[in-house]
């Protein structure tokens, strides 16, 4: 039972490079989310998806692109990485059960942009 996994766990890249962070969940949850976590800001929503081929912007979407061709995968791409995108990125999934939609988080990807 893998649950929700992220890869890579650590990544160092240079300014201007394209980077893709992967997220995979095995529960067939409808909803998936990408967050970034920076000191003093808590978790901020980048993008979310309600189902395959349905995505929408969150609080801080600029500089990021997402896709969701399959229910279980939700990759996040930084088209041209900047130092300000150095952060810890968390993927999460959720399914509505009754009125509850608790989010299950992956282990995170620590990205450093030099």
């Amino acid at each position: 039972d893998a649950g929700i996994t992220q890869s890579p766990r650590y990544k160092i890249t240079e300014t201007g490079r394209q980077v893709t962070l992967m997220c995979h969940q095995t529960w067939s949850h409808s909803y998936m989310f990408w967050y970034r976590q920076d000191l003093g800001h808590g978790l901020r929503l980048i993008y979310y998806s309600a189902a395959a081929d349905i995505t929408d912007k969150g609080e801080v979407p600029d500089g990021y692109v997402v896709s969701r061709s399959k229910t279980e995968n939700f990759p996040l791409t930084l088209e041209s990485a900047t130092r300000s995108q150095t952060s810890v990125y968390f993927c999460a999934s959720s399914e509505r059960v009754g009125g509850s939609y608790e989010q299950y988080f992956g282990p995170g990807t620590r990205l450093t942009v030099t």
Partner: protein
Amino acid sequence: GQQVMQIPQYQHVQEGEDFTTYCNSSTTLSNIQWYKQRPGGHPVFLIQLVKSGEVKKQKRLTFQFGEAKKNSSLHITATQTTDVGTYFCAVAYNFNKFYFGSGTKLNVKP
């Protein structure tokens, strides 16, 4: 900007003391969630509150949702070293568009 304010930012307690963190919103909330993140870990769901004035307990943890549904609190009775971590509240103003509070980092001295 942040949709929900969380205080305090840090709390240092002696083991056995109580701890409380608060989340406040300027608008009425449909529900609020609470998460715990251990150092170096990922957020883990604790609970969701939906009803006005709701109080829920999980062992030493007590969660409250205000009567006006604009604030919430998490209270830990008799803290233990296993309670160390950062506690976040999260609200969804639009369906599935979540905003997290900035978190309260709890340190417990043995």
